């Protein structure tokens, strides 16, 4: 039984299904809340913080917070806009993102968000970390320079026994993604492609394949991220 609850987003009255996450409810109502670590069909894990909204005045992540009756949500105000911009900038300074040389350029959600938020140059100084490129897997290349540690690969990719193929390693500023040396070796083509698709950036790439679609003709080259949702309003 689907129960309907009434909520407002930026003062707009919306209807949503009880228990639905705020991002999904907003989407159904033609309102785009930016996301990065969220992925359809995968259990949410509020780690990128980009979907932060104000719920009854408190900062909450829209991808993990279920709607409830009479919830008042603010998705757009100067403070949130600045916060989201800052978060995108933080990702750019944390890693090494050389977009023009990246296979994911144009399909990358981070790059697309940077365009949407009109980021020219980050306010924070670049960290220029030493990061590794791991090409030991026969199917995939993992480039830690581009990883934003969203955990989509960890949460979304499992082998037939339900084991994770990707995992975090260490903690804090030292966190990186590990690819399982054993079960990762027998990755099927299908799962390798799935891994690449689930990665919002160019950190996981299928080997020996690339630039099938020329840069300039890719998803976000043509259309701003989120505009498909907003068109439905």
């Amino acid at each position, binding site marked *: 039984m689907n129960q309907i609850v009434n909520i407002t987003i930026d003062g707009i009255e919306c209807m949503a299904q009880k228990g639905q996450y705020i991002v999904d409810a907003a989407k159904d109502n033609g309102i785009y809340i930016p996301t990065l670590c969220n992925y359809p069909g995968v259990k*949410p*894990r*509020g*780690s*990128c*913080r*980009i979907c*932060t909204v104000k719920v009854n005045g408190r*900062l909450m*992540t829209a991808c*993990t*917070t*279920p709607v409830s009756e009479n919830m008042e949500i603010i998705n757009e105000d100067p403070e949130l806009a600045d*916060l989201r911009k*800052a*978060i995108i900038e*933080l*990702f750019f*300074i*944390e890693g090494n993102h050389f977009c023009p040389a990246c296979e994911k350029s144009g399909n990358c959600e981070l790059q697309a968000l940077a365009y949407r938020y009109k980021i020219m140059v980050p*306010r*924070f*100084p670049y*960290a220029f970390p030493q990061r590794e490129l791991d090409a030991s897997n026969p199917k995939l290349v993992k480039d830690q320079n581009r990883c*934003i*540690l969203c*955990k989509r690969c960890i949460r979304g990719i499992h*082998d037939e*026994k*339900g*084991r*994770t*193929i*990707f*995992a*975090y*390693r*260490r*903690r*804090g*500023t*030292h*966190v990186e993604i*590990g*690819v*399982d*040396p*054993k*079960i*990762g070796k027998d990755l099927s083509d299908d799962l390798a492609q799935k891994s690449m698709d689930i990665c919002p950036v160019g950190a996981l790439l299928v080997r020996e394949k690339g630039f099938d679609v020329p840069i300039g003709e890719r998803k976000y080259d043509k259309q701003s991220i989120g505009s498909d949702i907003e068109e439905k309003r």
Partner: protein
Amino acid sequence: MKKYTQKVLDKYHHDKTRLMDILIEIQSEYGYISSEVITIIAQDLNMSEVDVEQTISFYHFFSMKPTGKFSIYLNNSAVANMMGRNEVAAAFEKETGIKFGETTPDGLIGLYETSCIGMNDQEPAAIINNRIFTKLTAFRVKEIIRDIKEGKEIEKMFSASFGDGANRNALVKSVVSNNIRKIGPILDPDYKVGEAIKKIIKMTPEEVIAEVKHSNIRGRGGAGFPTGLKWEFCRNAEGEKKYIFCNADEGEPGTFKDRVILTELPRLLFEGMVVAGYAVGASEGILYLRYEYKYLENYLEDILKAAREKNYLGKNIMGKNGFNFDIRIQFGAGAYVCGEESALIESAEGKRGEPRDRPPFPVEKGYLEMPTVVNNVETLCSVVKVILNGGDWYRSFGTADSTGTKLLSISGDCRNPGVYEVAWGFSVNDILEMVGKSGNVQAVQVGGPSGSLIGPDEFNRTLGYEDLATGGSLIIFGEHRDLLEDVVLNFMEFFIEESCGSCSTCRILPTVLKQKLEKILNARGIAQDIADIENWGKFLKASRCGLGQTAANPLLTSIKNFRHLYEEKLQTAKEYDTGFDLSAAVKDACEVTHRIPNI
């Protein structure tokens, strides 16, 4: 190694949620967890190897490389530094011939740094093979290293006398001192075990909760959530099984009062867990104990055993039909963030100690998805006294909003560091008088690094939820201390070290902010840098848990209360400075090419 690993896996019934215990046993046995062992564990528990590794690599006291037959973990908290840690650290390096982070070539000794180990009242302190060594000096370090090299057993390496009270117990035998300086109703040694249990079994669980609510007691772990309400939520939540967790992770630098309770009044604590279990309808209690307090393990287990024999724990407790409750100890493995209640639960389930997204809250969906209460050590002890003497009695202490008494952990520049039990409503000035200040006090850090650094013009403020809320840590800094260098910088390093790394904000920003501070300390700062810290620090509020949300507090509260210290260091003539040091950057290249930089 294979056989032993298999034995450990059997012991924990090949249960993936007991991975922490499995790893702890292997780490203690071999001093590290080898890739061979990881393969066995992964296969046995139907996990991938990277999955096992992601738990291992999260915790400070797990290692995938040998850590030395004697692994020495020297505390690096601000107070340890104030008490002469640098000299001690240098002595360790000199005597062993290795640097921190290394092991000796023969594999005998490993030297490591570690965050606050809960001994701020007796620094510098270190942990060596799960034993605590306090008040270290360069001389003592020489003795210790000599003893190790001579092959002495760790138990025989202590100097003549043990600490006070139960630290002398045959199962503890530790040089740690309790330093109890002021006793109130909670620390009162005149306590008879079991009286509260006898009382509650004649009450309904609802009546117990009502009494706790009436006392108005709020959580003592820092967040201050009303305890009775928490219990009621959990009691009313649906679940086949319910759990009581006692949070004994005590990781906030400067806090050590839970250590003292665990040493002197463990029976009181366990009774509090039983009371909570009865009220909530839980059948299992878990004491999540920080690994740093491993030296108390045998002692605590022995007390639990005695409690079972007396039927304070077990089936049909004290003759009450159907009232079953038992307690087990779950150790952490070195991660401050595991003190956050949902991270603590994750850790107890054998995973990385990453806080969960809330809602759902632990009272709805906690340990193994079941309704769970997490309470601080002191909260659970206080509740026993509430039951024994009534909510009205409890309310006669403290203020209207902050009822009862609070245990304070006081350290730093004062004559009598230690634990003080005072009624809420005490002012900072009262406290300074109580502890015997030595010289002029420049600042007090209230509530640990996540709290605030205040100066003399705020010493008339009072402790309590309505003014200065605190988990109980107060660190006093005399006028000779360099607050920015010795305190703020150290605290920022602590947060950077202890972030779980899952939120973008908390993983990245504190480092950016610390670099700003360093730029100012290096005399390269400009006015804009202070403004940047203030503006950027706000973004941390969007982090998932309290660690990230408060990680800029050392900077923000010190800028607010000690702005002059920052301003003194700024370059006044400059409006722009990247902080980039060109001559330093080209130094190596110049040396190689024998050129002199023309800048």
